[in-house]
């Protein structure tokens, strides 16, 4: 079996090649930083967390067996780091908005013109930060280029069909948050 460039890069990192690890950071920093910065409002903290992810990658490389793609493994580390950062959001159930509670609060929205304007962007970002961490990572990861359903499924340890279902649920929670708390 021929070694892929990814395997070769990992192997070089394992052998202590600093340039190889720098290359790895360069390759994945965009993805990692985007995920942390989209989950944590404070940019400096997001950078700190992104660096923490790479520190864990560096420590974990000797144990990385290459069964999953490197991006999947890194993605899983991002989820763990974000979960440690926000334990209040980690254990929140993926179905934390109870049906009865939601339906009772939900009111018809007749004229919400602001919903379509630029304010939505800000409200959407704030609402995403209120989601449980797995949902946050799912939404943020799915809408970033380069993360496939398969990667998300492997990183979150879920079947692919479940990922799609959870993505719908995450977006539903977003809609509920926007309807109720970020109006």
């Amino acid at each position, binding site marked *: 079996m021929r070694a892929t460039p990814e395997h070769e890069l990992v192997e070089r990192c394992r052998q202590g090649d600093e340039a190889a690890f720098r290359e790895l950071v360069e390759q994945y920093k965009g993805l990692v*930083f985007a995920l942390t910065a989209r989950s944590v409002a404070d940019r400096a903290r997001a950078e700190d967390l992104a660096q923490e992810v790479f520190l864990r990658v560096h420590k974990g490389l000797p144990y990385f067996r290459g069964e999953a793609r490197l991006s999947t493994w890194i993605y899983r580390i991002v989820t763990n780091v974000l979960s440690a950062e926000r334990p209040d959001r980690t254990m929140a159930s993926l179905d934390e908005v109870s049906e009865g509670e939601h339906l009772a609060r939900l009111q018809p*929205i007749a004229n919400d013109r602001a919903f379509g304007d630029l304010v939505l962007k800000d409200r959407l970002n704030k609402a995403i930060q209120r989601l449980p961490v797995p949902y946050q990572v799912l939404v943020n990861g799915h809408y970033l280029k380069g993360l496939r359903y398969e990667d998300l499924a492997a990183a979150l340890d879920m079947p692919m069909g479940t990922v799609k279902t959870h993505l719908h649920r995450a977006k539903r929670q977003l*809609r509920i948050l926007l309807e109720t708390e970020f109006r």
Partner: protein
Amino acid sequence: MRCEHLEPTMEAIADGSQEPGAEDRDHLQTCPVCQSRLARARMIHEWLPLRDVPTPPASFTAGVMARVGRERWRTERVFDLGFNVAIAAGVMLIAGGGAGLAWSLGFLNISIDWAALAVAAGSNLGDRVVPQIQTIGMAAMLLTMTLALWWWAETDSSV
């Protein structure tokens, strides 16, 4: 009733992964609540890919490499300390074992009056320390300052 049935499926309808049935379609055309929900679900679906992608600062990689370097240095320092302690313990063990062996074989015949030795040591120590108290105080102060500076430098470099 139809609203409650439709509500959990809004996101799937909005992104096109689920087609509403005939009854649901009729309901959607007449119910303002469901229309509003569907409009909002569609809006979210369209807006999510349009969000800005935050980019890391130019110094990001250098920052990671510096942290990795610091982490490696810390790990090596722990290993060094452990190694030195192990070596010292080993040397003491060998020396003690050798002395014990020599004593048990009769090569060493040491008899010590521990009480007299302690009294003499105490008296000697008092006689030597009291006249030098100022020098000892200064040395202690310098040592404390050095340790404090070292601690400060360590703390600062680990930020």
